[in-house]
Every structure is written in C-alpha cells, then in structure tokens.
C-alpha cells in the first residue's frame, strides 16, 4: 500500500505530511531549529508550490469534496 493509493489528493497529502512532521512526533528538549515563524514559512512555501492563490484556502481545508 502506498500513500497515493488511499490519499484524497497529492496536494492534501503533502500538506498533511508537512503538518504532522512539524506539529506531531516525539518532542525532545533538543535544539528545535524551526521557530514558529519558520513553521509559517514552510506552510506559506508549500501553499505557493501546491496551488494558485485563489485555490490555496480550499486545498488547506481538505481539498476533495466527498
């Protein structure tokens, strides 16, 4: 089974992946390089890559209509 096989869309899947990478997982008391502002930049950058501006909102809300 692959991610693509059951994902609702590659764009939504990528946003979910990035979101969980920087918002989930084990938190250690190490040096977390990405600041809050850095996280925002990741999101902004991904939105620009994934969709034109007028479509960015729906993409981040979940994309595919069921």
């Amino acid at each position: 089974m692959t991610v693509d096989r059951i994902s609702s869309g590659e764009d939504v899947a990528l946003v979910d992946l990035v979101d969980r990478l920087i918002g989930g997982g084990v938190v250690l008391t190490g040096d977390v390089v990405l600041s809050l502002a850095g996280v925002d930049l990741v999101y902004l950058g991904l939105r620009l890559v994934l969709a034109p501006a007028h479509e960015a909102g729906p993409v981040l809300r979940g994309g595919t209509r069921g």
Partner: protein
Amino acid sequence: MMLLAAVVPREAVLVGTELHRRDVGPVAVLYEERSEAPTEEPSAVVEHGRRIVALAEKVPLLPIRYGTTVADGQELDELAEQRADEWSRRLAHLAGRCELLVHLDLHDLTAPTGPAESGRAYLEARMARLRRHEQLVADVRRVLEPWTDETRVLPDRRRLAVLVEREDAATACEALAAWGEGQCDLAVSTSGPWPPFSFCEEDPT
C-alpha cells in the same frame, strides 16, 4: 550536528536507509549527520518526510518532530536515556499500526455570517456548528470503531487522527468514504497511511 529522525526498537534491522543509528537502552535513535541546520524549504521537509514514511512501512517507529537537532551523541544519549523505556512501550503498542488523517469540512462551518446578524444570533449559529462538528467526530469514531480504538482531534479541530492496523487502512478509508457520501453538509476525505505522528505519546485523557 545530528538531525534526529525517528526512534525504532533496538532490534530493528534497517536496510536501504541512509540514516545513522545510535542505540540507547531498548531503542535506537535514527539521525542524519549535518554540517549546518536543517532548512525550512518545503522540498527538504517533504523529502525528510517521505524517508520516514518509507521506513515506517518496514519497521515500527516514532517519528521525531522535524527540525530537532542535537550537537553530538553525548547530548543525544542524555536526552534519550530519560525516555527510552517510555518509547519502547509506545513502540510495542504501535507496532503494525499506522495513522490516517480524516478531514471533516462542514460546508457551513466556514460560511460567512451576514453583516446584519446580531451578536446573539452569531453566537447561537456558532454553537450549533460546533455541536454539529462534535457530533460528526462522534459519528466518525463510530464508523471506524471496528478498526480503531484510538483517535485524536488535531488542534485545527477539522481533522481527526485515527490509529489503525496497517492492513486495515484501505478498508477503513472505504467505510468512511461510503459514510461520507450520505452526509449532505459535509466533505470528508482521508490521507495516509502515515507513521503514527499523532500517537507518539499516550493519550493524556
């Protein structure tokens, strides 16, 4: 410096990964050697993520939040030794399981309210939408009950993380999609299977 990637059981056999490992008690911490801090470039984050996703299909793992670095092995040991037993128990619990992310988008949840709407009407409408959303989360949990006993509502409150057996992921998604088709005010979609990003710690509730 070391960019930390994931925690795996100490006995895990890793094939086909460029990640290094450092054994700490019953677990091993996987990491990349870096000469400089990891970038926040989306392509770099996604590449790191795909590596973790691919690895999770082969061995149980706890992903470590992207961007977490330590200076050297000694610092890693000091941090990991305090948590190694806890991680080991969690890895045993998560073995063979994966995470699905269910997107629940109520069509009217984001609908603009009229400019002439009173404050009371606005609050009542908002409460009704929140109750509807809570009901939907309960419904999704009921639909997925045959495949999961552990879910988490994510901070954005629009997504529900669901822990399922990896072999049940496709079936659970199909059941959810069939249920979603009968919901007139809801768009439901699913992504995954993912490593258990949202389940690395025991549910505090």
